[in-house]
């Protein structure tokens, strides 16, 4: 049994040596607590409907959660129809709120996870979460006084809300502009709170911009718009979050002139490769930190081995499960059944899977 011994209390270790880490987790759940040997579980403290087709869910993580910085995200895992799905959500609160995590989830009619969170999650529900990750956080020290320009598109508001709240927590909010794009007026979140923050902080400016409003669309991100609403960006730290098109547009406009440019795009939709066409695809191996390029025409096992990467394997025909590994992100096709697997964090057998697009594997 590989029991992690560091940082675990004696009683916890003694118990786990009798019943095993999985047994420990099992009984903790049976007794209704979120405690676990290593994994992070979080209980839903409250669910707020924001009136912008989205929910804010407040979570209390168990003691295994190591904390976070404003602007980071967590992976949230829930079981839907017997399968555990994992999606990333940004934390929209600040680290000062200690053991309280806030995620904001917009309802996507096609999205299984957002649908589940909107309909099935109640106060008291338990979700599994990951440790916080992501590098979009404010600098510490005197640099945090620099002017900041926050660019949010749609759900991209969530992590920026964390940064904004953090800036407002200091006595006087340093010069900050938030430009927030969404389809129309009904989609904007955090309306009351943003109005309140603006009223209390004279150096904070918030502009809501619509892209599809029937009344008046302000259009998409542009140079003139930024000049007009924020001005010169030379001394400004720029943070952008939104879909990949939006982030790329912001990067093209601002990354060279701004003091700092930090951006994060939502996970791009899985590209579905036409299997007839030969393509070279980048595979990121998270554990070894390597990135390799493989063809979409061969099985991942063959492709990895051809690059000199030894993977445990057995029958090479999909029966023995020896080569199964976690696919963290991306889309694969089961060569045997032709079935596509687009789920984040799901187990695939390398010998009968090929890549449809960029992949991240736990190897």
């Amino acid at each position, binding site marked *: *049994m590989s029991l992690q011994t560091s940082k675990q209390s004696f009683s916890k270790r003694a118990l786990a*040596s*009798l019943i*095993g880490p*999985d*047994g420990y*987790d*099992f*009984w903790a759940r*049976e007794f209704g607590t979120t405690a676990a040997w290593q*994994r992070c579980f979080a209980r839903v403290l409250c669910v707020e409907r924001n009136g912008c087709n989205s929910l804010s869910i407040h979570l209390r993580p168990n003691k295994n959660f190591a904390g976070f910085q404003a602007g980071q995200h967590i992976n949230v*895992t829930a*079981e839907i*129809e*017997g*399968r*555990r*799905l*994992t999606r990333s959500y940004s934390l929209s609160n600040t680290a000062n709120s200690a053991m309280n995590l806030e995620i904001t989830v917009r309802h996507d009619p096609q999205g299984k996870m957002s649908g589940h969170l909107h309909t099935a999650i109640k106060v008291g529900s338990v979700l599994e979460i990951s440790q916080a990750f992501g590098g979009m956080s404010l600098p510490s020290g005197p640099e945090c006084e620099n002017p900041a320009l926050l660019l949010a598109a749609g759900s991209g508001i969530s992590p920026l809300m964390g940064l904004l709240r953090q800036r407002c927590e200091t006595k006087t909010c340093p010069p900050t502009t938030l430009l927030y794009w969404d389809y129309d007026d009904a989609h904007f979140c955090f309306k009351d709170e943003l109005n309140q923050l603006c009223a209390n902080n004279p150096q904070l400016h918030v502009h809501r911009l619509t892209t599809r409003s029937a009344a008046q669309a302000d259009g998409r991100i542009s140079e003139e718009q930024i000049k007009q609403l924020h001005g010169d960006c030379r001394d400004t730290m720029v943070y952008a979050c939104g879909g990949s098109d939006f982030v790329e547009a912001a990067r093209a406009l601002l990354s060279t002139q701004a003091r700092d440019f930090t951006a994060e795009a939502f996970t791009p939709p899985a590209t579905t490769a036409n299997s007839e066409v030969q393509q070279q695809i980048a595979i990121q191996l998270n554990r070894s930190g390597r990135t390799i390029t493989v063809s979409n025409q061969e099985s991942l096992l063959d492709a990895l081995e051809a690059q000199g990467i030894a993977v445990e394997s*057995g*029958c090479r*025909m*999909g*029966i*023995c*499960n*020896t080569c*199964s*590994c976690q696919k963290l992100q991306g889309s694969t096709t089961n060569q045997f*059944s032709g*079935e596509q697997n687009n*789920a984040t*964090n*799901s*187990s695939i*057998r390398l010998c009968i899977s090929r890549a449809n697009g960029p992949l991240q594997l736990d190897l």
Partner: protein
Amino acid sequence: MSHVKNRPLSPEQLDAFGAELDAIQQTALQDVGDVDARYIRRVLKTVRYSEVIGRALLYFSFFPPAWILGTLVLGISKILDNMELGHNVMHGQYDFMNDPALNGKTFEWDIAGTSDNWRQSHNYLHHTYTNIKGMDADIGYGLLRLFPEQRWRPFYLLQPIWAFLLAVLFQWGVAIQELELGKVFSGRKSKAVIKKELEPVLKKARYQLLKDYVFFPLLGGPMFFAVLSGNLTANLMRNLWTYMIIFCGHFTADAEVFPKSIMEKEGRGHWYLRQLRGSSNLRGGKIFHILSGNLSHQIEHHLFPTVPARRYAELSVKVQEVCKKYGQNYNSGSLPSQFGQVLYRIFRHALPSKPSSAVPAMGV
């Protein structure tokens, strides 16, 4: 013998046979979902609760019926953990759930052998090279001669005794199977290699022994020996049960063994045929199937090892239709009848015997 029960198939027929079985598997896999997830959760729950109840009852062993009941419940818990939970989860049947507690690659069970070794010897070797002499170590577990195709040696004269010992100590036999100690004694395996391989095996064995024969008995205080003997008996129950189920799966009268040469140019249809002819089923009720981890449907398990085992019963109807269509024997019988055939093999092939030469090994 068995061969006359099977119609020889042309290459085209073999392809069609394989395609029909592929289709059965595909339909089943497409349907896998929350019913299977709920089922395996229920099994896991039953294993955990019955273990606690069984162990708790043993602490009241001053009242003898509590010892008997506690031992029985703990034994059943260990059987379920071994068969319906551990064996099937480690085949990756429930990997679709993405639950780390039920992941085939990381699951660890309450048995002497390490899961890692078992994944290699069972999931890979046994399931890929089923009943191929010299490739599948499950044929007699390196200890028994069950087929006339195996070379006779005087050692086998006493094999009813070896077979009995293997049954009683089955989990330990499986635990050291992967080490291939025979190779060490004959000098075909270096000391350094065996030392490295022994490390995880000894670690797991020590943990299992301490748990059942020191920690839990000590918690019983004055009930120390009652708890210890209850644990010992529960482990014995599981050993005998799993031995019986597993031996009935591949060593009945009609089960065939194959030479290595069979793998040359073996296509999908041919592979299916070998799985079918090397396996045999047991008839019984629902509880019997669950306690056997559905290995009572050994044929379906060998054809579709990654399909959740709870589906084998319904798949067996379709498999039997395909077997009938292609004139292949579907080897199935009651536990007494099939185990009787296993015992016959153990006794008969302790003595020199010759394969029947009338029909080639695989009538293709």
